[in-house]
């Protein structure tokens, strides 16, 4: 009787402990959501146009409650036509890049892994450079650069997959294949810069620094759509990614199809990354560091790590873009520079403060 009672107690304690464990993580999840909402609300009020805070919120609310809030054409155009889609692209773009980084680090069991490790940024950069310098690409018109960046990113992922498949899908083969692809596309981009005119080289460099200046509502919907399509599967597979962290043998013994999980996850995060960076240019830092920051705060359980990394990435990119477009106004700095300026000090702070190993 007393033994059964003790078992009940122990189970209750365990459940309580687990609930505390998950509760803490959920509280971080909500804290990040709240921080993003607050920062987005603040970012919406910043800009060169002289619109008051009330003017901004009236312009936002007038679309939802036309009878209750009044706005003018200028405020409506600035807020809805310039600021809001940029803010949302920062959030969804940062979410996508950070999630992709967290998944890559998980499936490759490598703290330095990110979609960019597999040559994705180099491929996108080459695609854009090809369009800028040679005017050549798979699609024409205004989609030339975007289309090239996207298609070359997907091609790079397929090439990494093909090379790794040849030698067996392991973290080592994927990283080595990725590094080979990265150097190949980097060399091709350097060649294009070498033969290009000074102005074209400058354009390529600007593209590769990343910018949210090309945002629009269409792009927000496309990126959001891709993330909405891919993220649920990654979240479902987060248990499997956790299992991969314990080693391929252990994961297999737990019933995980290691190779399939690794390949599908890699393809999905490549797809997400391609969708983001074809519109923004290469913003590499988020995918590498946002998952690390999150891991240092909430640990390595991918069920929580994936969404919270995404939110941390969104928050970081939004903060970086807000500073980038206001610190030297009217000049807008490339956001890729600002993500590192803001993220590195925070990362180093956590790195120094943290006593136990987080990886």
């Amino acid at each position: 009787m007393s033994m059964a009672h003790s078992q009940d107690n122990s189970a209750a304690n365990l459940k309580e402990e687990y609930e505390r464990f998950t509760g803490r993580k959920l509280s971080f999840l909500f804290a990040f959501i709240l921080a993003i909402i607050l920062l987005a609300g603040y970012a919406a009020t910043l800009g060169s146009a002289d619109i008051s805070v009330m003017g901004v919120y009236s312009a936002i609310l007038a679309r939802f409650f036309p009878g209750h809030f009044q706005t003018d054409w200028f405020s409506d155009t600035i807020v809805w036509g310039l600021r809001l889609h940029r803010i949302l692209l920062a959030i969804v773009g940062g979410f996508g890049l950070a999630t992709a980084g967290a998944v890559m680090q998980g499936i490759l069991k490598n703290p330095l892994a990110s979609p960019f490790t597999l040559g994705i940024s180099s491929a996108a950069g080459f695609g854009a450079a090809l369009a800028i310098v040679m005017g050549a690409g798979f699609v024409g018109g205004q989609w030339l650069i975007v289309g090239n960046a996207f298609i070359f990113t997907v091609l790079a992922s397929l090439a990494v997959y093909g090379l790794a498949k040849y030698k067996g899908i392991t973290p080592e083969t994927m990283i080595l294949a990725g590094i080979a692809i990265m150097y190949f596309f980097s060399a091709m981009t350097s060649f294009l810069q070498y033969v290009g005119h000074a102005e074209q080289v400058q354009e390529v460099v600007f593209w590769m620094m990343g910018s949210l200046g090309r945002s629009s509502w269409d792009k927000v919907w496309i990126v959001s759509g891709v993330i909405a399509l891919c993220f649920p599967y990654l979240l479902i597979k987060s248990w499997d990614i956790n299992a991969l962290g314990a080693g391929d043998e252990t994961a297999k013994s737990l019933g995980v199809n290691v190779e399939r999980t690794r390949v599908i996850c890699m393809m999905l995060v490549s797809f997400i990354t391609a969708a983001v960076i074809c519109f923004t240019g290469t913003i590499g830092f988020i995918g590498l560091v946002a998952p690390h920051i999150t891991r240092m705060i909430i640990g390595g359980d991918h069920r929580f790590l994936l969404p919270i990394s995404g939110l941390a990435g969104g928050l970081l990119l939004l903060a970086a873009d807000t500073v980038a477009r206001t610190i030297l106004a009217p000049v807008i700095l490339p956001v890729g520079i600002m993500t590192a300026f803001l993220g590195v000090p925070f990362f180093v702070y956590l790195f120094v403060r943290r006593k136990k190993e987080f990886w």
Partner: protein
Amino acid sequence: MKIICILALLFCIFYLPGIASSSETASIPGDTNGDRMVSAEELQNAEKEFGEGKISSADLETIRLIHESYPRSVKDSTGEEVTIYKPVERIAVMTTEDYEILRTLNSTDKIVAASKYIVQSMEEGSGDLYADGAGYANIGSPISSVDWEALIKADPDLVITYVSSPKQEDLDRNLGGTNIPVIRWDSGNISQYIYIVKNMGRLLDKDEEAEEYSEFFDESLGRYLDEVKARSQAEKPKVYLEADFGGGQTYFTCGSGHAHNALVAAAGGDNIFSGLQGFKQVDPESVAMKNPDAILRYKYLKDSPGIEKELSNTTALEVLRDELLNRQELGRTPAIQNRCVYVFTWDCTRGGARFFLGMGYLGKWLQPEIFHDYHPREAYQEYLNRFQHVDVDVLNSGVFAYPEE
């Protein structure tokens, strides 16, 4: 011991010739004491050698010319004094602007090497504009990759290049010891252009040609630019200049220090971002807030309408203009409301086209009262025919700007 002997031998084979070649200098005819000038005494020696049949009469004439007229010095666009010690017979030209100046001065027969933008005119998107330069030694690009070996092999006695390209340390490292004078001209700068033409005319003994061009420039364009200079700041429209060098991004503009800013200023516009330095992306809201009276869009693409296009083939430029006209955030600016939105291409900013076409179109858009009787195509055609001797018809073909009026 054997190893020391081998090392010494290798030193002699590889190092000594290097020292010898690096200290080799372009020789000055008649200069016997190495001071790079011909003194009266050295001229007498030359006359004596001519009497003895050791040198030809042409050689003697050259030595006499050097004695009488050299050295000659000019201050280039960097403020550096460049000295020429003998008549320039072999020129390496790295810029299309200076190539056009040499054509203006009827001095292309002195060119021995040129940049790829001249030698490979067709591949570099200039059509037939520099077709006569195809036979020169190709010395690459002054901006990204000079072929130093080809340049030295061409054995020029004058190199003409941009103000900042190639970098001075590259020039010193690669041409150091050759004593080849290098002149850096800012030939895209309207305030220096006539000075450059006249000084090059003086260096090449082509003063008459330089003067003829100077008169033509004053008559065809200079007088309009003088009128613009007399305008007060208040009479100059506020201009937002958007530059797209191929990346397709919006809201990149050119501030002070950029050649396009100088173009706007000379044509009578007040660049709203002249306070910025160089090429920068700006906040769209700031453009709307500054209320530009005119918006100019510069497009750089190899497949953009150019010198060889049909006159009516303006679709690409119309699309670019429409995109600007439809930007909601700029919808309330005077520029959009009055449809003062104009597009011009790379073809308008290259060589002489920068002035006769580029500045001309900008003048017509920004100061229509002054430029009302100026015709960019006619002025450029006359420049091409009279001074460039190029068989290119810009009256009945070519798309450079939209709308032209």
